[in-house]
């Protein structure tokens, strides 16, 4: 069994404990004869002291022993309260950590809001230029990034050269080749077609081969 501290029992005996502590110590004293005897002894000592004080002559300047005892008791309470408050300061404060994380989150949030606001307020051309510059810087730092056809499988390319024209899609190719001919004129249209025109050397016919790409 854990006994209350002597000071606790003394305060209990003098009726100076708070409600909760008083109930706790009284519960212990009800089961512990040792502490009960100590508390009773302190009560008896207190009663004797008060009787002695009553028999003592009056103090100067209107002071009384009772009043002095009350002041001493008050000072003791203040001391206990101060001790408890100081003990809280001595413990590691979890609040401090929480504040640190909050500060980090606030800074990150503010940065994100600023970045989004900056990006959305940029004219699209400047935004693309900035993106291109960042890519260039990245390429200079970590080397050239090569975009393989496998990386963009959805991209269809229409191509024209004097050898022929072709449309490439997902690694597959459809080409129209030109036979032996006299001069070839290559042309492309921004709507996604490429053509080559030539005069067939065998037939003398003007032939135009074209390939087109149209999204399905």
């Amino acid at each position, binding site marked *: 069994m854990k006994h209350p501290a002597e000071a606790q029992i003394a305060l209990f005996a003098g009726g100076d404990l708070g409600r909760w502590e008083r109930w706790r110590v009284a519960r212990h004293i009800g089961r512990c004869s040792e502490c009960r005897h100590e508390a009773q002894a302190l009560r008896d000592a207190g009663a004797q002291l008060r009787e002695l004080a009553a028999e003592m002559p009056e103090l100067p300047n209107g002071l009384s022993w009772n009043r002095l005892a009350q002041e001493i008791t008050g000072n003791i309470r203040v001391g206990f309260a101060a001790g408890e408050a100081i003990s809280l300061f001595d413990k590691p404060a979890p609040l401090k950590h929480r504040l640190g994380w909050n500060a980090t989150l606030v800074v990150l949030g503010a940065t994100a809001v600023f970045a989004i606001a900056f990006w959305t307020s940029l004219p699209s051309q400047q935004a693309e230029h900035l993106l291109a510059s960042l890519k260039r810087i990245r390429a200079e730092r970590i080397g050239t990034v090569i975009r393989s056809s496998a990386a963009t499988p959805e991209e269809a390319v229409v191509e024209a050269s004097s050898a022929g024209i072709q449309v490439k899609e997902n690694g597959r*190719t459809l080409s129209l080749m030109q036979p032996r001919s006299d*001069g070839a004129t*290559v042309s492309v249209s921004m709507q996604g077609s490429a053509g080559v025109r030539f*005069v067939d050397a065998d*037939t003398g016919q003007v*032939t135009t081969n074209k390939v087109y790409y149209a999204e399905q």
Partner: protein
Amino acid sequence: MRSSSLLLGSVLALVPLNGVLSAAALPKIDFPADSPVALLSADYGESNEAARGGALLLDFHAALSLRNSSQRKIRGITLLVSAQDVTPGGKGSVTITSLDVGPQESFPVRIDLRLLRPLQASSNVPVQIGLDGVLFDDLSFYGPDKLSSRRNMRLSEWEARRDRRYFKSVLAAGGPERLRQEMLESLTHEADRPSLDVQVVRGGRATNFEPEKQVQFAFLRLPDSPVDPVDGMARIAGNEARAPRLEVKNRSDRAIRYLEVGWILHDQTGREFLAGSVPAELNLAPGQQSRIFENATLKFPQLGAQPLAIESMTGFVSSVEFADGTLWIPTRGDLGSPQLQRVMAPSDEEQRLAQIYRKKGLSALIAELNKF
């Protein structure tokens, strides 16, 4: 795992990996029942297939013989070539213009098609050859016109008539010798004209790390053009030109439904070449202004060891179709301007006439001009 390997093995065993195409792999030619042309014969003599690593390369060489089964002369024909299994979004076409095929006469069409597809794809290659359109000498048209063949062949015929008229006038004014000079100049021009390989990527993103810049179009204004280019710009990054935006104004008294703007690029070393065209289907009333925008990227491979760096660009209106179906093309005078002369190719018809002169001589050329 084992069963899938067996399955793949048996599928591959069905495909002759190197050699002549099986009958199932030959193109399917399908013309409408009321087509003004009929298929007389199809020869795939040199067609073959060969494995290239993990891919199968199919070479089709089709020599078709078609007959004009209509009562009118045929001036042009466009055949549509598609291979849905290979390139679902891609199509090809073979167009022959400057024809002069009378009723019941036959004429040849050659198609040289190459397909590259993965080995494990379906063993049959359903290449389909169909008819997209036929243009007659009265400029009437037959066909589904999925590839705007009507407009393209009419533009070509328009140019052919303009050039035949011009060479006939040269012959009438200066005699055979003057015509000879014209033909020699045409052949020289054709040989000297700069040519460049080019790629088009629809909705393409910039793939190089050159800083991108906005470049304003300079415009070459042709005096008789019904459309005035007002403003325009494109984004240039190294050897790529992207997203051209143009503003055009209809200065004619007729509504316009289609126009095409030619695009000349100049590089840092002063070279210039015709990069491509920016076509636009629109509805442009007289006096009205409209914007044209194409979200595509032109990419130019390196010219030898020297990378191409685009510096500036020039636009000019190269053809217009009015709402009533009539066409406008630049005159011979317009095409004589030094800048266009440097980059523009001779028309289909001028190229054909020059080859007749080169192979058969002046008298054959004069006889050909007199046929029309």
